[in-house]
């Protein structure tokens, strides 16, 4: 790890974030941008879950390249975040996540980012996470379709649940990298804010060995 990477970071941010683990359910238009932003901020560990492989139709908005076509998204994304050089630890699971697996798969996560594309999946993911971990936040996205209308994007929160997006526009409008990445970065920014409040400023003292 090259410590110079963080010389322009917000003071104190990496010290806290490096102790945090973030789960990402989905490594597409939202998930790729969230993973890269969190890595650059100094997150300690990511858990990436996605069953899919990279397709040409993903390249208009997802952070993959021609050389990734046909490769598992979780593998390609792990390479990208590793290449930044922050030393982030990345666990990958190439699988179609099921509701019953959410608790176990993300057991180590301090926070979950919902980055699925289907609304039905967003719904069961939120339910499964809140049931398994009622004291840990989930940052979801809804309403990322089309282009422009930047000032309609916002964050809404209730309890442990947080939503980014306009809450209305859907992918029937088409998906544009600029707007998808905006919402992804709102998710990442909010995740950082929540983790900064939750993570201790200093590591817990080591327990003394008993005689």
């Amino acid at each position, binding site marked *: 790890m090259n410590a110079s990477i963080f010389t322009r970071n917000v003071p104190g941010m990496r010290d806290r974030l490096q102790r945090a683990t973030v789960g990402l359910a*989905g490594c*597409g*238009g*939202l*998930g790729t941008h969230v993973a890269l932003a969190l890595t650059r901020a100094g997150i300690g560990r990511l858990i990436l879950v996605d069953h899919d492989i990279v397709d040409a139709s993903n390249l208009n908005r997802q952070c993959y390249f021609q050389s990734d076509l046909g490769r598992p998204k979780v593998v390609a994304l792990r390479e990208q975040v590793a290449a930044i050089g922050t030393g982030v630890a990345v666990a990958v699971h190439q699988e179609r996540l099921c509701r019953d697996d959410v608790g176990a798969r993300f057991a180590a996560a301090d926070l979950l980012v919902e*980055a*699925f*594309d*289907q*609304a*039905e999946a*967003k*719904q069961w993911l*939120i*339910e499964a996470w*809140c*049931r398994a971990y*009622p004291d840990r936040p989930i940052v*979801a*996205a*809804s*309403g*990322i*379709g089309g282009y422009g209308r930047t000032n309609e994007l916002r964050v*809404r929160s*209730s*309890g*442990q*649940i947080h*939503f980014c*997006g306009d*809450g*209305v*526009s*859907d*992918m*029937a409008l088409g*998906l544009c990298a600029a707007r*998808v990445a905006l919402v992804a970065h709102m998710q990442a920014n909010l995740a950082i804010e929540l983790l900064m409040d939750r993570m201790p400023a200093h590591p817990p003292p080591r327990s003394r060995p008993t005689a």
Partner: protein
Amino acid sequence: MITINDREQLDWKPGMTVNDVLAALGYSYALITVTLNGTLVEKEDYATTRVPDGAELTIFHLAHGG
């Protein structure tokens, strides 16, 4: 009185469930996430979860795309 999404208000009635509130508001869209006083109500519990007077209900629309 029940407050929805920090702005709309609805008269409270004894025995009111989450489903009753959604119906009164004219919600027919199934893809939503609902919290009651900050706690998630699972979809399968809408019909049985009672909404107390003075409750705050938050409804998030789930739009496809990711």
